[in-house]
């Protein structure tokens, strides 16, 4: 799932993005593999929790880095992270309340992957361009 083309040229961030994609991949593989949903559910829950925690940790680390380099778009970037974290948390909460309905979890996974790819190749790339321009790496 991770592709070299997703690298934005900031080693610390690239390493964390790869880790994030790896965790998203584990989650998606758990829910896309053939078999009965009930049997897959323990692994789906485990990989979802694992991925969810990393989303929060990565966004915090990325924002700490942006603060350190004086990135001017930090407030807007923080808002995007916050909205997405809220979405992930709300979905995870609803899944728990509703017994992890398969169509809803599949829907969440599709949205998550498309959002994440776009966030890395578009929004995070802007940060990389700033870093290169300012020599802040």
């Amino acid at each position: 799932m991770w592709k070299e083309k997703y690298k934005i040229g900031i080693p610390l961030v690239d390493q964390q993005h790869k880790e994030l994609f790896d965790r998203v991949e584990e989650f998606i593989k758990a829910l896309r593999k053939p078999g009965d949903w009930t049997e897959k559910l323990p692994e789906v829950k485990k990989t979802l929790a694992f991925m969810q925690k990393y989303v929060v940790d990565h966004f915090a680390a990325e924002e700490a880095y942006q603060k350190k380099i004086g990135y001017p778009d930090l407030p807007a970037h923080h808002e995007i992270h916050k909205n997405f974290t809220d979405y992930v948390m709300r979905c995870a909460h609803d899944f728990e309340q509703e017994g992890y309905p398969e169509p809803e979890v599949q829907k969440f996974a599709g949205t998550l992957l498309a959002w994440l790819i776009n966030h890395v190749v578009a929004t995070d790339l802007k940060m990389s361009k700033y870093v290169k321009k300012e020599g802040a790496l």
Partner: protein
Amino acid sequence: MAVQQWKDNPFFDATKEVFQSMLDMEISPLPENGGTGREENVRVEIALVGDLSGTVVYNFPKSTTLNIVKALSGMDADQLDEFATSMLGEMANIISGNAVTALSGQNYQCDIKPPQITVGSADSGKYCDSVDLQLRAPVGEMCEHIRLSSKS
């Protein structure tokens, strides 16, 4: 109609940009005005409100959808399930969001509503009073129907 067919059309420009950045693919206009064939379609409708209001409908034929899912996830897909359709819904959401950002640079302040996704029969190719974009990419063909009016 507040947008042109191709030149300076923020939805066409945003689609090109998103296909380039997410899929590494170029898109181009289709010369024929014929819809997206007889295949089942994923239809994503996004409403705009504000200085411009109306809808943008994205039609992705089944083969295009499954090719995009494979390109993004690296996994084979053979049906239009929630995973596949929501991925296309989010792509349409991203394209619309980028188009709305471009429109704000032309002094049109708009917001988009969450995508409404349905799976249905083939796209008819022409909507009443809309700007229709028939597009081709290496993953297949797709259509966009833009029906917007400005506040007067």
